[in-house]
């Protein structure tokens, strides 16, 4: 335990806190020159329209991912929890994308989304050519196209957690409710849903954290473009650090992001625990 804790301290905690210290300097990311500038970098965030746009886009995509991924995950879990014969094969199939590297799936989807890519070609073949889209090139659509990649990849992951929750629900409760005349929807709402609170808590928190930190899929598919239409806080942090030579400002945004993620996670964790306690 102690060696692991020491390693964790040295590799994660110490660099994190020392790294955060750059947010209070003017370090460019190169060279020795560095001066203490206090809260100047944090103040800059509130005057930076690019940072504010990135914040709102991050919040929007996180909200969509969290809601849709969990709804889809729950539906998949309910589906593969049934007694259909192919349930094991379906479980593997739905979970498979989650074990792939996000960068790989993003490259894959970049080609699927191309103007003459598989998605538009498939729409044509199905007689749905009118639905063809410039999936990653249309600024009004690109953010949601990226969200769809994340949802496609991680709904299976949410499914597995929901499935574990479903399997912990005592079968006798359902049977007793059935004897009392409760329908499937009533049984789900009054028995399954409260007992899934832990799974919901974990899934929502993971999706929230993943959404706020979203980088790989955006960077590979759009690089934050077109223009700034898919810029998230993570891509903005990357650009400031490595392309603009503004490492200190980049670190300030990263610190802010960490605080936001921690706060949102704490609030929803507390809320869901209360819900679980009252049910």
């Amino acid at each position, binding site marked *: 335990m102690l060696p692991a804790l020491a390693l964790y301290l040295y*590799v994660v905690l*110490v*660099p*994190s806190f*020392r*790294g955060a*210290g*750059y947010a209070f300097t003017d370090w*460019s*990311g*190169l*060279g*020795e*020159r560095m001066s203490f500038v206090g809260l100047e970098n944090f103040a800059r965030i509130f005057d930076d329209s690019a940072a504010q746009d990135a914040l709102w886009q991050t919040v929007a995509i996180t909200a969509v991912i969290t809601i849709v991924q969990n709804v889809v995950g729950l539906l998949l879990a309910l589906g593969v929890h049934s007694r259909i014969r192919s349930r094991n094969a379906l479980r593997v199939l739905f979970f498979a994308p989650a074990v792939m*590297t996000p*960068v790989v799936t993003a490259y894959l989807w*970049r080609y699927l*989304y*191309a*103007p*003459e890519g598989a998605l538009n070609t498939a729409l044509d073949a199905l007689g749905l050519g009118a639905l063809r889209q*410039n*999936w*990653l*090139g*249309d*600024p009004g659509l690109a953010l949601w196209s990226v969200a769809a990649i994340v949802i496609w990849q991680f709904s299976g992951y949410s499914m597995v957690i929901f499935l574990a929750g479903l399997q912990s629900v005592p079968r006798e409760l359902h049977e007793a409710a059935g004897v009392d005349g409760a329908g499937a929807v009533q049984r789900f709402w009054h028995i399954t849903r409260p007992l899934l609170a832990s799974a919901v808590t974990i899934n929502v928190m993971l999706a929230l954290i993943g959404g706020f930190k979203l980088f*790989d899929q955006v960077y590979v598919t*759009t*690089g*934050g*473009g*077109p*223009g*700034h*239409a898919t810029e998230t806080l993570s891509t903005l942090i*990357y*650009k400031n*650090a*490595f*392309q*603009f*030579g503004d*490492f200190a400002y980049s670190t300030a945004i990263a610190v802010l992001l960490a605080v936001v993620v921690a706060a949102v996670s704490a609030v929803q964790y507390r809320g869901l625990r209360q819900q679980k306690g009252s049910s």
Partner: protein
Amino acid sequence: MTNRRLPAALCVLATGALLAACSNTATPPGGGTASAALRIASNSSEKIALDAAIAAFKRANPGIDVQVTYADTDPYLTTLRTQLSSGTAPDVFFAFPAKGNAGAVQVLAPSGYLQDLSARPWAGQVPQDVKTVTQAGGKQYLLPVTFTGIGAIYNKKAMREVGGSEPTTWKDVLDLCDKARTAGRTAFALGNQTPWVTQLIDYALVSTLVYTPGSTFDADLAGGRTSFAASTGWKGAMDKYLELSKRGCFSKDPLGTPVETALQQVGKGEAVAAVQVLATAGQIRDAAAQGTELGMFPLPATDDAQATRMPGAVGTSYAINAKARDRAAAEKFIDFLAQPQIMNDYAAKSNAAPAIPNDAFAPDPAFAALLEYQKSGRTVPFMDQFWPNPKVQQAHLSGVQELFSGAATPQDVLTEMDKAYKSN
């Protein structure tokens, strides 16, 4: 690595790992360990030419093992800056001229990351105009290898099939668009999903519209006497860029098209041409059928053929890490690259000219226009080379994407570039 550098290095470790996964590492057969080898890093566009140069170097120096890593521009810059700040950068690496880019010599040298090459035997032969963009503080930090240009690289068969010819005026360009469209082809493949590609047509047009003979635009901009937003030439270039788009000159949905796809379109003849850095001709050839002939023409911006100028500047340059593990091998490699025959071979494989001219160079006739323009003084340095920081280029890149999506006007983009210029 100093204690202060350690946290930064760890903070970016994940990014580094990701980028390493995207890169292409070629370890020579029988190569030794990383610590025993001369480590070289370069841009993916250099692979054909640098691989050949390394093979020649190893034949001449069988005792030196070489490891080379390639990455595309964006991940390359990220990795390089991370490695430099953490003290793990390769011994020899590709670096950009001037200062408008995050990996440019005048950005990296002041921080002490580059070895002074002023005493190398070839340093005195570097032409004066090349010195200005490969030096910092009066010291030579880069070996300039190629002189390259931005022009329209075209598929000769596709040009014939649409009934077109090399345009010499703006009207000819628009006519070519019409002919290509009538023939069911695209005149110019455009991969504006890839940010760095977005700037190329502007650069090609601005070289004629802004940098007329005797132009003092860069000096006036630096002196605060003019601005991008006040420049009729810059606005004219962006207007023409949009005019090309409205005329149907570009491939479908350029904002959803990555550069690789655009280059393949030219190679396969689906598009007649692409306005590109000449080094990408190799990638177009890779996508083309055996025997496909390529050509190049400067992109006209006016109806006066004699007024046309083309962007031409130092392309490939290499630097030595100030903390190189094997300094002697690194210097040997740099000096090897500087030999006229090696530099000529490198330039030929890059469809460029040697940055240190010599009489033995025989240019590929398909790309001879670059040398003709260079000799007649009708080339203009790449615009970003004289911008004071990388933010101007980024404002331009994302601005062009916004132009194409209708989210901004040319005036909006130019105003943002002015803000970035003054943010130094």
